[in-house]
């Protein structure tokens, strides 16, 4: 094993949070080495036209996503089952390579609602302590919306996010989300233009008395230079957004928005094709000494560092913590231990609306994360006691772009092949759009992550094991929301609609893409008994390890996580710069 020269900080993973921390820590004068398991990637030469506009490469060969051949996880529905490997990519799509999932996301860029932060105490004060079922292990975030606001704002500025503010400094602004937390200023760019399905959604929503607003989208609506001097160009709606890197410097990504600066810094060294195996701890397991990784040639290397930043994809951070002995593993039987606790997901259903040939849905036009959305069934807008479930949802119209290799939706009952399929594909491909329900996922005592006792990855490490299933609460929420969305859809008199609300007793299906919003497992909290990291994302147990990503969410809300993930990374970086570096050690005393 070779030992590299010691650096101030080593960062595991070069997606959004790795790039943010690398920028902030080199700003502070630290020597930073970033280890990325995948290849180096950039707009040129990896995402250029027409090479990137290849559905077979992007969505079948999944060229821009992680191969599962060496490293995957196992999944089961409950503690009594044998978990089996996630062998083919389906339900969620981890990325790899420089940029990570930040290259192949769509760009939906929400902030959480203020009441998403104090979820448990908010429900307890609204409905009484007994309202929350015992097995539901939801917790408050140990940080408030107000504390994160400058960081939400800064991340939007870095991304060139396009949107319409609803509240600025407490004052309502027409056309935005009237239910949002107050912003300190406008979005850096105006909202993107609307496609047909978005316009129709907004109209239908207004007819029902709801409050539609443009989805905040990290897809530039005009020329833009971010605070780092990186330039973005207006989105041309190419239709290759989810699964793909952006050909046009329009979709915000670490590659387009942060790496152009980092790559020029002498304090920053990026080592792609470097698979981190574990974090090395000193003998009393209170301090990390660095990380051990396999370099591009497959040789084991150790990178000593004073500070270790785990910035891999959400659950992979949890995997590294469990493999390295950082924090006590969670035990679902006793509820004790913290690492792996509160794994949560996203409760999503798509509804496709089919029309006659006079309606030009043009699903091949993609507008990234943009579209129209309502918050009328999210946060404190709903009476959970009356509805009988916890957690809010958003309803939206989105169109990141789709082509026929990615699949042509057809009305229910249409044959999947033969002349009848062919006729239906011709009749319907251009004349449809889809709307979706995206709901929160509460945390449960028996939904968690741990190390698999049977399966090992190609590096000889126990795989991560996910134990997760849908609960009655989420099924009830989904059924109610799909019903509401269907009312709106019916008001347009479509020829047909397709949507499968979750059915009672329905199990989590790992083969159907739902969302890459995998959350929890290394949650943040106000004391070491209920959480793996403190309010600054610092490990309670190993104080020179900071853990980024949606793994910090105590439970998942109704929004896409990236806005929150970016804001938390900046919040953590500020604490490292202003507090930790001055006096290394625990920033919160238990």
């Amino acid at each position: 094993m070779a030992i590299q020269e010691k650096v101030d900080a080593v960062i595991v993973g070069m997606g959004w949070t790795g790039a943010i921390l690398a920028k902030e820590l080199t700003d502070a004068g630290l020597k930073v080495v970033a280890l990325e398991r995948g290849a180096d990637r950039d707009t040129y030469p990896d995402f250029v036209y027409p090479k990137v506009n290849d559905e077979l490469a992007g969505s079948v060969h999944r060229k821009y996503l992680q191969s599962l051949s060496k490293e995957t996880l196992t999944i089961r529905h409950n503690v009594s089952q044998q978990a089996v490997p996630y062998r083919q990519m389906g339900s969620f799509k981890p990325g790899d390579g420089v940029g990570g999932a930040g290259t192949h996301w769509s760009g939906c860029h929400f902030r959480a609602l203020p009441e998403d932060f104090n979820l448990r105490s908010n429900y307890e004060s609204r409905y009484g302590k007994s309202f929350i079922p015992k097995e539901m292990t939801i917790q408050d975030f140990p940080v408030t919306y107000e504390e994160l606001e400058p960081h939400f704002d800064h991340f939007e500025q870095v991304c060139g996010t396009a949107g319409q503010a609803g509240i600025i400094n407490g004052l309502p602004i027409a056309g935005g989300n009237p239910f949002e937390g107050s912003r300190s200023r406008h979005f850096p760019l105006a909202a993107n233009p609307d496609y047909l399905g978005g316009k129709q959604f907004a109209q239908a929503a207004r007819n029902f008395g709801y409050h539609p607003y443009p989805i905040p989208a990290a897809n530039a609506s005009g020329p833009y230079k971010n605070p780092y001097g990186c330039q973005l160009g207006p989105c041309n709606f190419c239709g290759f957004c989810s699964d793909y890197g952006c050909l046009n410097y329009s979709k915000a990504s670490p590659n387009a928005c942060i790496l152009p600066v980092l790559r020029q810094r002498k304090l920053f060294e990026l080592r792609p094709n470097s698979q981190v195996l574990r974090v090395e701890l000193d003998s009393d397991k209170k301090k990390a000494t660095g990380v051990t990784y396999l370099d591009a040639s497959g040789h084991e290397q150790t990178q000593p560092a004073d500070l270790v930043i785990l910035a891999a994809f959400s659950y992979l951070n949890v995997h590294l913590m469990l493999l390295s002995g950082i924090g006590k593993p969670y035990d679902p039987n006793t509820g004790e231990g913290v690492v792996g606790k509160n794994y949560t997901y996203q409760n999503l259903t798509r509804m496709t609306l089919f029309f006659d040939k006079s309606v030009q849905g043009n699903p091949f036009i993609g507008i990234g994360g943009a579209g129209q959305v309502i918050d009328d069934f999210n946060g404190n807008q709903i009476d959970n006691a009356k509805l009988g479930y916890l957690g809010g949802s958003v309803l939206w119209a989105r169109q990141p772009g789709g082509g026929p290799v990615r699949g042509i939706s057809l009305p229910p009952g249409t044959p999947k092949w033969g002349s009848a399929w062919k006729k239906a594909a011709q009749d319907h491909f251009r004349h449809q759009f889809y709307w979706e329900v995206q709901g929160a996922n509460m945390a449960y005592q028996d939904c968690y992550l741990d190390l698999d006792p049977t399966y090992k990855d190609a590096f000889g490490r126990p795989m991560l094991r996910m134990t997760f299933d849908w609960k009655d609460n989420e099924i009830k929420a989904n059924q109610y929301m799909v019903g509401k969305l269907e009312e709106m859809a019916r008001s347009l008199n479509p020829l047909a609609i397709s949507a499968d609300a979750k059915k009672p007793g329905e199990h989590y299906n790992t083969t159907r893409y739902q969302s890459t919003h995998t959350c929890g497992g290394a949650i943040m909290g106000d004391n070491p008994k209920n959480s793996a990291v403190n309010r600054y994302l610092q490990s309670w147990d190993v104080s020179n390890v900071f853990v980024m990503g949606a793994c910090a969410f105590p439970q998942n809300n109704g929004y896409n996580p990236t806005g929150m993930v970016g804001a938390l990374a900046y919040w953590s970086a500020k604490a490292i710069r202003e507090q930790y570096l001055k006096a290394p050690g625990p920033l919160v005393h238990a």
Partner: protein
Amino acid sequence: MNPEDKQETYESRRAFFKKTLTLIPLTVVASQVPGFVDAAPGPSSQSPSATPHSTTAQPYAPVFFNELEWAFVNAACARLIPSDALGPGAIEAGVPEFIDRHMQTGYAAGDIWYLQGPFHEAGPEFGYQGKLPPRDILRVGISALDNWCKGQYAGKRFSELPGSEQEAILKKIEAGEIKTEGVPSKVFFSHLLNETLYGFFSDPQYGGNKDMIGWKLVGYPGVRADFMDWVEQTSKPYPLPPVSMSGRRG
């Protein structure tokens, strides 16, 4: 050309393909797989002869499939996306060629799947838990289905049965009503159908979607990838024909 003429042309092409099937040599040529390279060709790097655009050109000689498998793939493709009154189908689009070439890629060898044991049975919600990569799912499934046909139809293989019978068999296998040895029949069918759809709709450089037949059928503009002038245009149909990665217009 009126629609009747079209129909006749496609029918005669199908007859041509049926005949040529028996002429295909068994030689397996170890060759590079054009199209399946990391760097996609630029607009000028592909000569017209590299991607045959006429269905009457020299028939494609399969490299991955043997003669019996090739007969099955051609027969199945002709049923899954038939040539009919709406226009040409999978055969005319070169889908069998696509599949044969696609089966020679790293993807088909299982490059992005986790294929290590142990192998445990699990419910359908956990996906295919067997040990076969995509190319072997097809190969094992084809052999199993041909064997099933031979037992049911006095020694005849799938490709030797009348079209109506083939359709009935495909419906049964789609519904999981036929047991295929070595691979779950629903898994086999979904791979066969997906490969056919990929071949019908992927960029023509991969051997299928010849003359952008698939894209023209549904009105997909291919890789135009710029709709700045059309995102808010909702009253008129999108007017431009498809364009392929090589810059060809359909």
